[in-house]
């Protein structure tokens, strides 16, 4: 669509801008202020400059938490995006089954995050959980509270269970937007299913995939409540991801300044990666 150049459109955006700026900008400024001071109590504070940043950047615990986080987030994307596209292709397109499958597929998205942890805790435990008991009875050693590999894969399975449906819903809507004429043309040309997918469906999905990849990346990078309930970050620190490390620092140890410096670094990481995704995908679709 040809858009008209009109700067008065700013007035239409203004309410959103004010509302979001109120809750976004003021806390951000405060966190920046925290990060360059040593705050002993509200009235005793010292300016320390870049000290916390230096310390945080060299902290080996943090670096390993970041490594685990990156591996986890990219595993999440590598599983959920293809799986989500595949399931979206499987969804019915007409009849009563559309509404029924939509309802069933969307259900995990509406489970409160801590309850997701509870569900998987009850499902995966070796003594009372269906998954745990089944795996153990067929001879696979499985105990997510002891084995770090088991814990990691349980958290990953939980995230796939919880969030793949978001990708499914977004892709499903993208697929429905493709006019039938495209498919008819492909049929006349005798295009194979793979060709149809590659040259008709995938390009039309680019828009929704941008948002799916971004949302999944951002949310998995900040995953907190689910592993907190499920594994508490353990065993050892095998499932302690960035958010949890941060929360321990900020809430349990009440070390606000270090945590603030860390969370700004964290924010910059997410910002940079998201910007790269956003730019690559939006430019790729424009050309």
């Amino acid at each position, binding site marked *: 669509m040809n858009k008209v150049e009109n700067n008065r459109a700013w007035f239409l955006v203004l309410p959103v801008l004010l509302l979001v700026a109120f809750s976004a900008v003021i806390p951000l400024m405060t966190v920046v202020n925290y990060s360059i001071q040593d705050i002993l109590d509200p009235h005793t504070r010292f300016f320390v400059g870049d000290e916390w940043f230096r310390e945080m950047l060299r902290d080996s615990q943090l670096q390993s938490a970041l490594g685990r986080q990156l591996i986890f987030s990219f595993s999440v994307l590598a599983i959920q995006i293809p799986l989500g596209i595949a399931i979206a292709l499987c969804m*019915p397109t007409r009849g009563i089954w559309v509404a029924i499958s939509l309802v069933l597929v969307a*259900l995990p998205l509406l*489970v*409160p995050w801590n309850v997701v942890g509870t*569900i998987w805790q009850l499902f995966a435990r070796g003594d009372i959980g269906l998954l745990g008991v089944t795996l153990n009875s067929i001879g696979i050693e499985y105990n997510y509270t002891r084995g770090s590999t088991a814990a990691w894969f349980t958290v990953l399975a939980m995230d796939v269970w919880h969030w793949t449906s978001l990708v499914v819903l977004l892709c499903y809507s993208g697929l429905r937007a493709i006019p039938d004429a495209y498919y008819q043309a492909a049929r006349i040309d005798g295009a194979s299913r793979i060709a149809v997918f590659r040259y008709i469906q995938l390009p039309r999905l680019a828009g929704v995939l941008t948002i799916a990849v971004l949302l999944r990346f951002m949310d998995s990078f900040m995953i*907190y409540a689910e592993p907190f309930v499920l594994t508490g970050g353990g065993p050892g620190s095998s499932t302690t991801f960035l958010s949890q490390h941060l929360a321990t620092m900020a*809430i349990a140890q009440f070390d606000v300044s270090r*945590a603030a410096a860390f969370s700004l670094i964290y924010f910059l990481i997410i910002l940079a990666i998201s910007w790269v995704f956003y730019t690559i995908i939006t430019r790729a679709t424009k050309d």
Partner: protein
Amino acid sequence: MERTKKIGLIVYILFLMIPIYWLINLSLQPNRDIMGSFSLYPQNLTFDNYRRIFTEAGWARGYLNSLIYVLMNTVISITVALPAAYAFSRYKFIGDKHLFFWLLTNRMAPPAVFLLPFFQLYQTVGIFDMHIAVALAHCLFSIPLAVWILEGFMSGVPKEIDETAYIDGYSFPRFFVFIFIPLIRSGIGVAVFFCFMFSWVELLLARTLTSVDARPISVVMTRSISATGVDWGMLAAAGVLTLIPGALVIYFVRNNLARGFALGRV
């Protein structure tokens, strides 16, 4: 081909449903059975776990609190997102793309540290422990999403409709409310679904910004659990209860979702 598709979908849905089935199964058993005998279905069916939850104070209130702030959040988000989405879909203006990306970045702030400034900010303005505080905080996530979804639907409406309406002498507000909004009804349905979803499932902000008067259901749940130690049956029952509102919402908007998705502009 059609067979493979069906099987794929059924396997996926089974994968989604089995953990939920297990939760319901455990919630209907006494603790003695949960720990003692492993069984695929409740052998001594009991509703005791639910009865105990409902006799404890705070549950109904918690439900109500959660629903109030979720609804406030949805109403606010949609109201401000509608004009903004219209602007993004119809006009070019200075900084439009950057503004859009900035809106998205608000999802990227790691909550653990931002909780403290949030808490202090809302206390300073005097809305701490009020429903509106949680609603406003959740706007950070829901407004960008609502703007983006609505923008997609609006771009699908031909611009000739706007122009014809202006020629017919409609003012902008009248055109927007009486002609334009009805045209993107399904889009609004989809946006409502997503706003509801992200507000209902969030816990950290909701817990930090409330203490007594606006305490949400998931907090009530965790508290009554920790008070009684690890009580698997009750934990499961509490989990089942938090699933219900979400399930109801999807059920009610299912046709809107299906229609919105059929228009395909999400």
